C-alpha cells in the first residue's frame, strides 16, 4: 500500500482574533484520488488549498504532502517543493499576459532549472494533449476562458507534480466551458493524477470526483468516498466512469 499523498493532522488556521478559518481538520488523501472540497464562501476551502500548496502555514497541526512536512519549510524550500511536487490551477487562470502560451507553460520548468530542449518538448506535448497546440505562440489575452484554463492546467502539469490543486477551476467559466474543464480533469485523474479541487458546485463535484469533503465554518463536516465517480455527458445524462 502506497503512502498517502496528503496527510493533515489536527490542522487549524487562525487570522487575528476572529473565528478560525480552519479548525482541527484531519485528512488523508491517497494516491490517485480526485477529491472535491465543497463548502460555502468563507468556509475555509481556499485556506485548505493554500496550506496544502505550502503557500500558508497552519496555526496548529501538521501538513504532509508527498511525504514532506510542508508546514515546516522555509519560503525558498516551499517554492522548490511546490514546483517539483504541486501543480496549481487558479479560478482566474493567473496567466502572465506578457508571455506567450508556450512561455507560460514553460515557466515552472524554467524556474526549476530544467534544460530548454526537454522542457520545451514536454510543454509542447502538454499543449497538444490538451488540444491547444495551435495557440502556442499566442498571448493569453486572445484565448477564450476555457482555453486559458487549459493553458493553466498545462502549466500546472509541466513538472509532473504528484499533486494537482485546483481552486475553483471553473468559477470564471460558463457552464459549457466549465464542464469541459471538469472532463479534462477527469481524464487526468484517469491517468492516475491525484487531484484536489475546491468548488462550490456540488453537482459537478458529485459528477466528477471520487470523493468529496465539506467544510462548514472551518470544520470538516462531511467526507463521502464513493466507489465510482459519476461523469456528466453533453446531454446531461450521467454515466459511470471506471476509476
Amino acid at each position, binding site marked *: 500500500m502506497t503512502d498517502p499523498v496528503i496527510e493533515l493532522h489536527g490542522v487549524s488556521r487562525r487570522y487575528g482574533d476572529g473565528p478560525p478559518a480552519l479548525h482541527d481538520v484531519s485528512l488523508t488523501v491517497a494516491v490517485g484520488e480526485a477529491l472535491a472540497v465543497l463548502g460555502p464562501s468563507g468556509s475555509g476551502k*481556499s485556506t485548505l488549498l*493554500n496550506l496544502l*500548496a505550502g*503557500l*500558508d502555514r497552519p496555526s496548529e497541526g501538521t501538513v504532509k504532502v508527498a511525504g514532506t512536512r510542508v508546514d515546516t519549510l522555509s*519560503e*525558498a524550500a516551499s*517554492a*522548490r517543493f*511546490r*514546483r*517539483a511536487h504541486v501543480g*496549481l490551477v*487558479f479560478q*482566474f487562470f*493567473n496567466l*502572465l*499576459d*506578457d*508571455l*506567450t502560451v508556450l*512561455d507560460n507553460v*514553460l*515557466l*515552472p520548468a*524554467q*524556474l*526549476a*532549472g530544467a534544460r530548454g530542449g526537454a522542457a520545451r518538448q514536454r510543454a509542447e506535448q502538454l499543449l497538444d494533449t490538451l488540444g491547444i497546440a495551435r495557440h502556442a505562440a499566442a*498571448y493569453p*489575452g*486572445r484565448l477564450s476562458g476555457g482555453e486559458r484554463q487549459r493553458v493553466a492546467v498545462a*502549466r500546472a502539469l509541466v*513538472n509532473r507534480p504528484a499533486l494537482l490543486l485546483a481552486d475553483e477551476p471553473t468559477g470564471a467559466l460558463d457552464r459549457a466551458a466549465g464542464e469541459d474543464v471538469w472532463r479534462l480533469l477527469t481524464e487526468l485523474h484517469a491517468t492516475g493524477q491525484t487531484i484536489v479541487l475546491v468548488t462550490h458546485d456540488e453537482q459537478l463535484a458529485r459528477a466528477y470526483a471520487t470523493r468529496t469533503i465539506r467544510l462548514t465554518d472551518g470544520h470538516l463536516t462531511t467526507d463521502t468516498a464513493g466507489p465510482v465517480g459519476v461523469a456528466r455527458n453533453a446531454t446531461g445524462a450521467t454515466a459511470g466512469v471506471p476509476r
Partner: protein
Amino acid sequence: MTGLGRVVRSGIRRRRVQTVVIGLVSAAAVTASVLGAGLLVASRSPFDAGFTAQHGAHLSVVADPQLVTQAQLIASKTASGVTDAAGPYPVLTLSFTSTGTGAGAPGPEPAADGGPLRLPPLTIVGRSGPGGAVDRVEVVEGRWPTRPDEIVVAVGVIRIPPGVRLQAPGGQTLTVVGTARSMSATASAWVLPSALDALTMPGATRGYQMLYRFAAAGTGAEVDAGRAAVEATLPPGAVTGARSWLDVRQQAVEDSAVFVPFLVAFAVLGLVMAVLIVGTVIAGAVGAATRRIGVLKALGATPAGVVRAFVAQALVPSAVGAMVGTVAGNLLALPVLAETEQLYGSANTTIAWWVSLVVPGGILAVVAVTAWAASLRAARLRTVDALTVGRGADRTGGRSAALARAAGRLTARMPMSRPVGLGAARPFTRPVRAAAILLSIAAGTASVTFALGLGGSLIRIQTAVEQNTADVVIEIRPDEAPPGGGTGTHRPDPADVLATIAAQEGTRAAYGLAQAPAAVAGLTDPVSINAFTGDPTWDGFTMVSGRWFTGPGEAVAGEAFLRATGARVGDTVTVQADGTPVRLRIAGEVFDTGTAVFTGADTIAAALPLLRPHEYRIALTDGTDPGGYAKRLTTALQPQGLTAYPNQTPVDPLLVVVQGLTATLTLLLVAVAALGVFNMLVLDLRERVHELAVQKALGMTPRQTIAMVVASVTGVGLVGGLIGVPVGVAVQHLVLPAMAAGGGLHLPDSFVDVYGPATLVPLTLGGLVIALLGALLPAGWAARTRTAVALRTE
C-alpha cells in the same frame, strides 16, 4: 470629515511606504535646492552684500592737508547728495620691511640687493577703531591696535599674519596684531592716529582720508557727480586722489568670479534634478492610483473632487518633507557659507531668508502641479477604463504591448535564468516608468561625473597656481645670519648650493628661485620677476601656448601679465629692474594667476648682479624619504649655513571649500536619484503584487524574486550610466572654461581633459550602483510578499 477627506487620510496611512518616500524625496530635494539656491544668491552679489553690511564708502578721497583743514573736510559731509561720511583720517604711504618672526612669512618682495624683505608700499590710515558711520571694517583675525606700536593689515594681496614685525623707514618697529577686511579697500593697514605721527618722517607727505556715501551711486556717472559735489565744497586742488567703490567692486568680482560659475552650475543642476525627481515621483504615485480614482468616480466622486483629494494626498507628506528639508538645508549651509566667506570676502554666513520660503514653496508647487496633472488625467478617463487599469485587462494591442512582448520573447531565448530574463524584460512592459528611472539614474551619474571631473581639474589648477610640487625646500629667511655670525641676509652662491644638492643621493631635480620687483611702462603696479637658476619646468608649470624659455633674453608669462602689457607670445617686453631696462622676448604663455614674468637668472644678471635665490626646490626620486633626505642635505649644506625641510604646501582653503561643496551637493543628488529609483520600483511592485504571488506560487524562490527585481533595473542602470557620464563630462567641459574665463584665465586642455578610461568606466558603472541602491529594499520586500494573501488580490 468629508468622504474624500477620509480617502486622503486613508491613502496617506495605508500607503505608508509611498507617503514616506514622497516625504523623503521632498526633504532631500528641498535640502539640495535650499543649499544650491542659497549659494546662487550668495554668488550673485557677494561683494554687494558685504559692502552693504559694512556700510561701505561709495567714494574714498585723499585730501592735501596743506590746502584744506579738518573743519572744511568735516563740513563737506553736507555736500549735495551725501548721505553719510566718515573722517578725516590721517593717511600715509609707507614701505615697511619685514623683520621676520611670527608664524608664517609674508609674501616677499625682497630688495634687489638681497637685504631684508621689503614689502610693497602700504597705505596706512590712522583710525582709533574699526567702526564708524562709513566703512565699518571687519577684524577677521586678531584684534585692532591698542598701542602706537601695533598695526592691523588688510586681507588682500600680501598675507602678513599676526606676530610679524614690520620696520618702518624711520626705524620704528610695529607688530602686526590682526588682519581686517574693508570691502571699500580704503587702506592696506591701520594704526592708531597717534602712531601715524611717529611714522611720518620729515618731508613725507601725509594726507587726510574722507569716506562718503551718496544717495545715488549705482553708476560711474552718479559717483562722479557725487565727487564733484564734494569737491565743490572744498578749496580747489584739495583733493589729491579718489577711488570709486565701483572700481573696488569690479576687482572683487574678478577675484571671486573663478568659482562663481561652478557654484552656479552646480546649484542649477541641483535645482533641476530636484524638480525632475520630485515630479516623476509624484506623477508615478498618482498614476499608480488610477484604479482607486476609478473606484471613487464609480461611487459618485466628481472628477474635480478626486483631483483635489489626490493633490492633498501628495501635498501632506511633501509639506512635512519640505519643512524638514528647509531646516536641513539651512543647517548644512552654516559651515559651507562660513567658508565661502573667504571665497567672497563677504559676511554672508546664513542663507537669505527669502530662499527658505521661495524654494520649499517652489518644490511644493511642483508637487501640486504634478499631482494635479496626473490625477486630472486619471480623473478624465472613463470610469470603466480607470477601473480596469492594471487588472490583467487584455493588452493585446498597442505599440507598448508589442514592444513588451518582443522583449519578453527575446529574453526568454537568452542564456540567462528565467527570473533574470523576466526582470530584464520588465522595463519594456512599463516604458514610461522605466524612462523615469532612467532619468533619475542619468541625472545622478551626471552629477557624480561632473563633481569628480571638477575636483580633478581644480587639483591640477591648484598645482599649477602653487607652482610648488617640490618634495624638499630650502628657504632663506630674512633674519638668517651667515655661518660664523655677521649681519645682513645670507645668500650663498647658487652654483655651490645646487652642486651640493645634485650630489645628494635621492635628488631627481632642483632649482633656485629669486624674485625681484620690476616696473613696466604704462603699469602703475610693479610686476614680479621670477628668476630661476636651474631647470624648474618639472615644478607644476603648465604651458598654455608657446614654449618654456630656453636661453638668455627669453621669458614666459601668464595671461594677466600679457593682458596688462598688451603683449603676445613672440613679442619683446622691456621691464625696469632696479632702474635698469631688461628686454624679454616672450617665448610662451604659462598658466599663472599673477602678473609675474619667469626667466632665467642669467637674463637679469646684468641688471641685478647681487640677486640670488631665496628658495631652492628639490624633487626626489621615487622611494626617497623627504625627512631623511632633508636631514642629510642640511648636514651637507652646513658650510653654506642652510637648512632643508620637507615641503608641506598647504592646500588652498578655497579649494577645500569648493571640494566640500561638491561632495555635499553630489551626495544629496545621488540620494535623490536613488530615492527616485526606489519609489518607481515600489510603485511597480505594488502593481505587480498579484503577478509576483503567482510566480511564487509556481515555484519562484525568494532569491529568484530578488534576482528578477534587480535584473529589472540593471539594464536601465547601465544605460543611465552611459547617458549620464557623457552629460557630466560635457557639463564639466562647459563650466570649467567658463570658470576660468570669469577669472581672466585661459586653461590648458590638460586641465579640462581629466577623464581617462580608469575614471570613466567606474563612473559608468555608477549608474548601476545608483539603480541597485534604489532596488535593494523593494527587492527584499518583493521576496517577502505573503503569497497566499497576494493571490487573493485581483
